[in-house]
């Protein structure tokens, strides 16, 4: 009870001036429906409720948010937008341009977000100079996960170059182990692809090819090499990979069927859930090469009517970026906090490594948005690239053809 009073008081303090009397209300559309994710959202909901808010949950799973985006579009068109929506990357700016997002600058300024968020991440939360979304976490995408026992048994070190990786893979195949656990879904193909682009081309090339869509970079020899490496990767994958969910691929690494998996740090949650220890049972490292590909989850607030809902948006935005939630949520989810002033003592070594790298790459200018997870490009552009990547990976297409198709597809999307 005491806590409730305290919470209410603090809420009043924050949202004073906007809508003091309305009970904060929020209908939250998201696609975090399973295990660890759902638990993470529950943390937010509890905090929200503790601050006097009433939370209506609207989960829509499937297709990495496709179904949720379908629902969102229908809701926005019907003039019945949800209060807050899980959105990320350039999609935030796209929605803002459609004129349907709310401005949450008052909260952001009151909370001093600009000081605690890395500049590149803060950039994703701004629309035409105003704050329009609240970041939840930072996922690193360019991870390579490995089964420690399998590597030890075959005398393999964690690879730091793609040549080393190829050598290790050959060795593993000879030993009858699947080198790469992979699920044949377009977004997983794209995840591997961007890691290879970053590794072989380097951060600058990545920026040119997959962020700026520079035609020269897209048709360069480097890109041909990237597709050559993708063809090699295809050989390291077992034949049942098609349509496999990523968590099943993770399980293959866990039980020693496969040695490596290239996947974002949500994979760690699977290892931890199975009782595996980082550094002992499984190993984490960035994929060969420099740079850091981030995938930042965030919530955008939609324009809604009613003081209660507006109060809910302000409260929600404040809670999301507040240190407590950032810590608890990311402990559950396997990612790291978006704000840099959260103590990472409770986090595991992988998360600490991720945070360290984020700091260093941010300074070096190689902290880059993940294209595969919708951070770098608009949907139609990233989709066009993914079409080519996945078509190449799943067929006998030559690297030269793939490069040509890639350039065409990018030119054809806009």
């Amino acid at each position, binding site marked *: 009870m005491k806590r409730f009073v305290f919470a209410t008081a603090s809420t009043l303090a924050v949202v004073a001036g906007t809508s003091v009397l309305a009970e904060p209300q929020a209908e939250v559309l998201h696609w975090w429906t399973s295990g660890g994710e759902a638990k993470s959202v529950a943390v937010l909901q509890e905090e929200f409720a503790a601050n006097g808010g009433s939370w*209506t949950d609207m989960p829509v799973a499937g297709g990495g948010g496709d179904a949720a985006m379908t629902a969102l579009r*229908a809701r926005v068109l019907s003039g*019945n937008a949800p209060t807050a929506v899980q959105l990320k990357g350039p999609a935030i700016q796209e929605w803002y341009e459609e004129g349907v997002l709310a401005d949450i600058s008052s909260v952001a300024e009151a909370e001093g977000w600009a000081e605690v968020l890395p500049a590149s991440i803060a950039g994703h939360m701004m629309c035409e100079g105003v704050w329009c979304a609240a970041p939840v976490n930072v996922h690193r995408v360019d991870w390579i996960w490995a089964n420690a026992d399998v590597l030890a048994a075959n005398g393999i070190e964690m690879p730091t170059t793609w040549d080393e990786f190829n050598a290790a893979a050959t060795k593993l195949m000879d030993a009858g182990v699947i080198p790469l656990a992979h699920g044949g879904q377009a977004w997983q193909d794209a995840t591997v692809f961007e890691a290879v682009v970053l590794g072989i081309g380097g951060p600058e090339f990545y920026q040119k090819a997959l962020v700026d869509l520079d035609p020269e970079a897209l048709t360069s020899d480097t890109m041909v090499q990237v597709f050559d490496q993708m063809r090699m990767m295809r050989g390291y994958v077992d034949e049942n990979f098609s349509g496999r969910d990523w968590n099943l691929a993770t399980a293959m690494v866990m039980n020693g069927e496969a040695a490596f998996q290239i996947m974002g740090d949500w994979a760690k949650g*699977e290892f931890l859930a199975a009782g595996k220890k980082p550094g002992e049972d499984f190993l984490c490292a960035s994929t060969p090469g420099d740079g850091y590909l981030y995938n930042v989850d965030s919530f955008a607030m939609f324009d809604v009517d009613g003081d209660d809902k507006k109060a809910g948006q302000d409260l929600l935005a404040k809670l999301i970026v507040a240190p407590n939630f950032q810590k608890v949520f990311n402990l559950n989810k396997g990612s790291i906090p978006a704000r840099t002033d959260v103590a990472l003592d409770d986090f595991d070594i992988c998360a600490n490594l991720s945070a360290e790298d984020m700091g260093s790459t941010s300074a070096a200018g190689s902290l880059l948005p993940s294209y595969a997870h919708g951070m770098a490009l608009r949907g139609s552009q990233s989709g066009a690239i993914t079409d080519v990547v996945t078509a190449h990976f799943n067929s006998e297409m030559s690297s030269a053809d793939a490069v040509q198709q890639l350039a065409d597809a990018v030119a054809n999307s806009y």
Partner: protein
Amino acid sequence: MTDISMPQSQTQSRTQSAAGKIALRWLLYVLLGLFALYYLMPLFVMLTTSLKSLEEIRTGSLISLPREVSFDAWNTAWSGACTGIQCEGLRPYFWNSVLIAVPAVAISTLLGALNGYVVAQWRFKGANIIFSLMLFGCFIPFQVVLLPMARLLGIMGIAGTIPGLIFVHVIYGLGFTTLFFRNYYVTIPAELTKAARVDGAGFMRIFWSIFLPLSLPIIVVTVIWQFTQIWNDFLFGVSFSQAGTQPVTVALNNIVNSTTGVKEYNVDMAAAIIAGLPTLLVYVVAGKYFIRGLTAGSVKG
């Protein structure tokens, strides 16, 4: 009845031994049995998987029977599975689906009956064109209508509500229900309507007193068809619902298609069976009438 199974005992030569005939008969049953296996396989996999423990699923074979039958997964799926932060299983969504499907089926069937009655028995100039225009509506891909429909639902103020979903299902069910009833009513002699008109009955009276009592077979077909379509709908359900009005297919999708975390396949399968149970039941119970109704409608129509 076509009745041609054993007609040839007299006309065929006697050299064909009884043994040969029995063998043929056996072959027939074997063939039918094999097809039955093909059709049952997915259901079998779903059912056995739902009764296994997660451990057994990981280690065992796909088609083996469960070593230890457990209904835990069913319990979880019904009332404990988490979709998002709520862990209430399919139960509340199941109820939503009932609230959507029952009125939508009833309304679209009634309207289809009335429309079919008009088109088949009260032909007026242009009735055929109107009917073909309505029929063409059956074939429109539903993805096409999502966005404009959302806008109109918003204007009408029923976006995200159960009445809104009922409305959508009724609209896009009209083509088929009208077709079914029209094809059925076309087989009823026009003289019946004439006789009733001379007897002094009006349009509605003839419908209620004469046509509706005749319509049981086609009502069964229409109800089965509409119920299956509406209950199984996902696209409209996911697009035009909001928190609290989502139908069971959306909840099932949330359970089955979660992208992260440990997948509880037994719960997925149990949830899938629960979500499919009402339609399954309808087919098993009323399947016989379905086939009969089809005879009445589409063959002679």
